[in-house]
């Protein structure tokens, strides 16, 4: 499936970004743009909805790393409902220490 990303800024300062399809180097910049938007809008937390993300290459992981660095240590990044392959990639690299992985979002 082709990649697409949608983003929403909720009133409580949560940036909700949903990812669809396959995230590789050719489309990673679209995801990056959404993260930059959340940073400009001073989001207090970022919720990444990955229910429909089928594949994430290292380029996608780099955007996650970028997100963590850009938003700063005060902003929590949630990864919600990551599919098996995507979860494996995040866990294998140990990046699951830097984000909060949940099946359904619940604020910590």
């Amino acid at each position: 499936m082709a990649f697409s990303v949608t983003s929403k800024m909720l009133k409580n300062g949560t940036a909700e970004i949903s990812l669809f399809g396959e995230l590789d180097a050719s489309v990673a910049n679209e995801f990056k743009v959404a993260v930059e938007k959340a940073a400009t809008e001073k989001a207090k937390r970022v919720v990444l909805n990955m229910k429909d993300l089928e594949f994430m290459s290292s380029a996608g992981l780099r955007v996650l790393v970028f997100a963590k660095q850009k938003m700063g240590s005060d902003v929590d990044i949630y990864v919600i409902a990551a599919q098996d392959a995507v979860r494996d990639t995040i866990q294998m690299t140990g990046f699951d220490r830097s984000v909060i992985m949940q099946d359904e979002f619940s604020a910590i």
Partner: protein
Amino acid sequence: MLSTVDERVDFLKNSLLFSETSPDALVEIALKLEDVEVKAGEIIFQSGDLGSCLYFIKSGQVRVHDDDRDIANLGAYDIIGEMALLDSKPQTATVTTVEKTDLLRLDKVSFDKLIHERIEVAQGIIRVLSHQLRLRDQELDTTRDSLEKVILPLGIALSTERNLDHLVERILIEAKKLCNADAGTMYLINPEKQLKFSIMITDSLNIALGGTTGKEIPFHPIPLLDEKTGEPNFHNVSTYVAITGKSINIPDIYQAKDFDFSGTMAFDKRTGYRSISSLTVPLNNHLGEVIGVLQLFNAQDITTNQIIPFNSYQQLVVESLASQAAVSLNTQALLRHQEILIKIEHDVQVGRQIQADFLPDVLPQPKGWEIEAFFQPARQVAGDFYDAFMIDDKQIGFVVADVCDKGVGAALFMALSRSLIRAFSWINNRNFTHRQDTSPGGQTLECKEMILEPISLTNDYIALLHSKMSMFVTLFFGTLDPETGMLTYINAGHNPPVLLDSTGRIKDRLTLTGPAVGLMPNITYSSRQLKIERGDTLFIFTDGVPESHNPAGKLFTEKRMLELLSEPVTSSAVLLNSIMHELNVFMANTNPFDDITMMAIRRWQDERLDP
């Protein structure tokens, strides 16, 4: 207005067809004629029509043309339509009136009768045909001359001319010569979508600017689109030609109602010049792109030097020259691009050589061990790397790593990571040898601690100093004591290596002991230890193996890789070769998706008997 018989007779006397006809025959003919008045811009007959009559033009002007171009302009005393009557074939051209025209029409039946009954009329026809034949002959001679002496040699010269300025200038000069035109301008379209004056020549005023003259042309470029409205500029003939790709041939610019020649007229006023006829053609490379405009002024009659309009033949030739020129210009641009690409290609090759230099030439082979590696970059330069080096005279350090991403960026990080790990390992080792505890237990603990420093330092280095790049490296770093088989390792976010026994049974997977390197600073890594027994093989790999794609887009998968490993292992080299063979068959002809790296570290079953 109807004409009288006398008027007609007078007229016929002066025509080529009836000049030798007797007066009473002329009266007879005059009676058979019909007056026809045609308004300006009307079609008298069309190409393909069957001939039903011929016409004498009494007054006015008509244009003989077909779909593409004008063939001739005819006026008083000329005849039209006679060929179709003579050979009973359809008209070969269309005749349209340029202004209000009075004709005298002679129908086919009367014409046929006249030819049969009056020998002088038949002779008159022969005279007319003969005259036309001579004109054709002359045209043919001119054409042949032009082709042999100018067009063909010019075509050859154009295809070999490498210097752009010379090329463009040559085209303008030859086109001018061909038409015996007094002046010419070459425009080239610039990236800002304007017509830039490239060369300007006016012979009679001794003006030659631009091109190889080195003299600047003092005019501003003409925008193709109106600066205020963004609408295409159709008023200026040069921009019109550039936008539409159509040629415009104007007999007298002062009579041209469709175009704005105020610039030219101002030039005339200033210089005392008189611009009359103009021919403007596009440089169209037939890829649908107009890259410039060629404009000629004031074609001159060869004998009288009078200013005449550009004829349709000249238009055809100049158009052909212009399109050849456009293709040549395009070719030159492509050749220049190619030169740049070759330079970049060369740089990448150098990068590849330097990177190959970063990989170990020879892997350490301590007694009782076989260490082999396989490395295949997906592109010219790789993001994967492997390393194996002596940390001190006993311990071996080895690394298999994958920098996120591929290509030149990853390659640079690969070089950085491998250098940091080696350097920190050596420095570390030097520092640690100052410790005094030499008991085996103490040494084991030391290994566990020692291994952490290089990785943690490398992690901080990349995470802090290169955070802008968001790069990270997954790596497996191990130190091995070949005498005891004790392996101390850190797995930083990397695919868990597989420990096999000699039958191919999977004994262990060496899982994560910390996150990938470069993600975040100040990470506390941990290390683990295990013993590699005799006959065991440690298989280390990167993503490129399980993620290899086949032509249908399916992945090789780790499962299949593990199945391949479950065979008895007699040699590291054989193991790696057999996996690579399977991968090649699987990938068929597709380009590898990712760098493929594998390392196999096997301990001999029996030190004395192997291999």
